[in-house]
């Protein structure tokens, strides 16, 4: 029950007392709460490896490896991931980075409403060849921040900053969710990987699969834009995907962006995922058109194969062909390496990139990463 005196105190500007009271209340709930809410066999538990739980008056507070900390019945779950990268490029340059931790906040007070945020701590630690010691220029980036409402599967409305739904890779591009240490060239500054605006999305379930769509547009000032690659002033796009329960899916993307001169550029893409068996995954993704910040037509694709050679050990190979806009020559790349996933929340990767010529976008060399979901 709320205390009217405390409420008046807060209104009068005596917030420190309110904070103390709030902290005390929370501590009391956590420490002194009766164990009546203790989990029994009949209480559903979250999936994943439970590290600890605490039964409180707020409900069951539990932490599961790689699935985050759920704060009782509040609907809030906090998780995330962290990555350590190291690379030794042809030509002698070496570097290492700690990326993150990146925090994922998921708030679902009722099934029809959801809030989500991704906050990345940046530049916590990095070393470079030619520099002395470990350097740190920490900051925080808002990678995603949106709210979503939906009363059924066919129509959901999202507003805020979200991942631009183009192709397959960009939907979940972070290290722990992909098979190689570097992303394909068709994703590097070709389109705006994030959109600040609104999106309608939904799914239908005819026959043996799911037909999903996304329609989106950038209408607002971008939230925490990338200073090196600012997003287009306005943009709009659509993604359509058919995901079969038989282990394959196909998608088509369209992205239109307004340039600084007021002209609109158009980009199209297609992607395919095929899993012929449990141990083999093939992905192909291509893109063609005019990017927001370039005038010429670009085109490119990648084809990637992942094979589970031994349990938890995956061999990975990817071929890429990219024709940049302008006069730069086409680039051919081949990445080959492995990924070891001893637990669902831990991934170690190492791969070598071969390139037909040296280009700042495609520096050949050895790269490795260690990523953990928490």
């Amino acid at each position, binding site marked *: 029950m709320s205390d009217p005196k405390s409420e008046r105190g807060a209104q009068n500007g005596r917030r420190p007392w309110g904070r103390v009271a709030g902290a005390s209340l929370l501590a009391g709930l956590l420490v002194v709460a009766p164990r009546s809410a203790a989990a029994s*066999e*009949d209480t*559903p*538990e*979250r*999936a*994943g490896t439970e590290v600890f739980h605490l039964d409180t008056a707020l409900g069951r507070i539990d932490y599961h490896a*790689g*699935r*985050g900390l759920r704060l009782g019945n509040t609907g809030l*779950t906090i*998780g995330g991931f962290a990555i350590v990268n190291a690379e030794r490029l042809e030509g002698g340059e070496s570097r290492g980075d700690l990326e993150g931790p990146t925090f*994922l*906040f*998921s708030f*679902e007070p009722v*099934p*029809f409403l*959801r809030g*989500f945020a991704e906050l990345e701590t940046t530049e916590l630690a990095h070393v470079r060849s030619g520099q002395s010691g470990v350097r740190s220029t920490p900051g925080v980036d808002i990678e995603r921040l949106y709210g979503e409402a939906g*009363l*059924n*599967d066919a129509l959901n409305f999202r507003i805020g900053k979200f991942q631009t739904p183009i192709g397959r890779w960009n*939907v*979940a591009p*972070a290290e*722990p*969710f992909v098979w190689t240490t570097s992303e394909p060239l068709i994703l590097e500054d070709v389109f705006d990987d994030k959109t600040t605006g609104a999106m309608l999305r939904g*799914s239908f*379930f005819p*026959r*043996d*699969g*799911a037909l*999903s769509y996304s329609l989106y547009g950038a209408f607002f000032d971008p939230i925490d834009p990338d200073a090196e690659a600012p997003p287009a002033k306005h943009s709009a796009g659509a993604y359509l995907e058919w*995901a079969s*329960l*038989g*282990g394959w899916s196909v998608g088509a993307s369209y992205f239109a962006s307004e340039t600084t001169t007021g002209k609109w550029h158009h980009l199209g893409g297609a992607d395919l995922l095929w*899993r*012929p*068996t*449990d*141990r*083999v995954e093939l992905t192909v993704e291509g893109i063609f058109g005019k990017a927001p910040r370039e005038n010429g037509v670009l085109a490119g694709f990648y084809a990637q194969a992942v*094979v*589970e*050679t031994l*349990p*938890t050990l995956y061999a990975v190979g990817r071929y890429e062909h990219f024709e940049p806009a302008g006069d730069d020559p086409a680039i051919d790349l081949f990445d080959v390496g492995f990924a070891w*996933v001893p637990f*669902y929340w831990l991934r170690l990767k190492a791969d070598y990139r071969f390139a037909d010529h040296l280009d700042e976008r495609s520096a050949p060399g050895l790269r490795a990463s260690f990523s953990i*979901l928490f």
Partner: protein
Amino acid sequence: MARRLLGLAAVLALLAPTRGAGEAVDVVVIVHPRRTSQLSLEDVAQIYLKRRRFWDDGSPVVPLNLRSGTPLREHFSRVVLRDSEARLAEYWNRQYFYGIFPPATLASTEAVRRYVASDPNAIGYLPGSEVDGSVRAVLHLR
């Protein structure tokens, strides 16, 4: 020649399914008796992948799994989701990037039956021999 044959055998082994398709396990998908709509295998799969999140009347679906490593769950994943536990872990990792979590789990089939009998929005699965009048069977998987 022998090396080529060995290489071909290795490729075929990688492409081969990992389990036989003829295992006869009687699993029944159950819902609350108040739920009268029919569900197909595909409907159940979309629910357990959390792509389909609502019943036809707009109520949120509450899918229930058994704990990881349970033979019945592995069979269910194979038949309904057509995937191994390792592949499904990859799927849920990608969903985690969006704050979407796998279905909750219960410790026993008895607990699943009791929970589904008490929650009109829940859906679970049991061995056929454990289904009783407190729940409604909507799909038999063999």
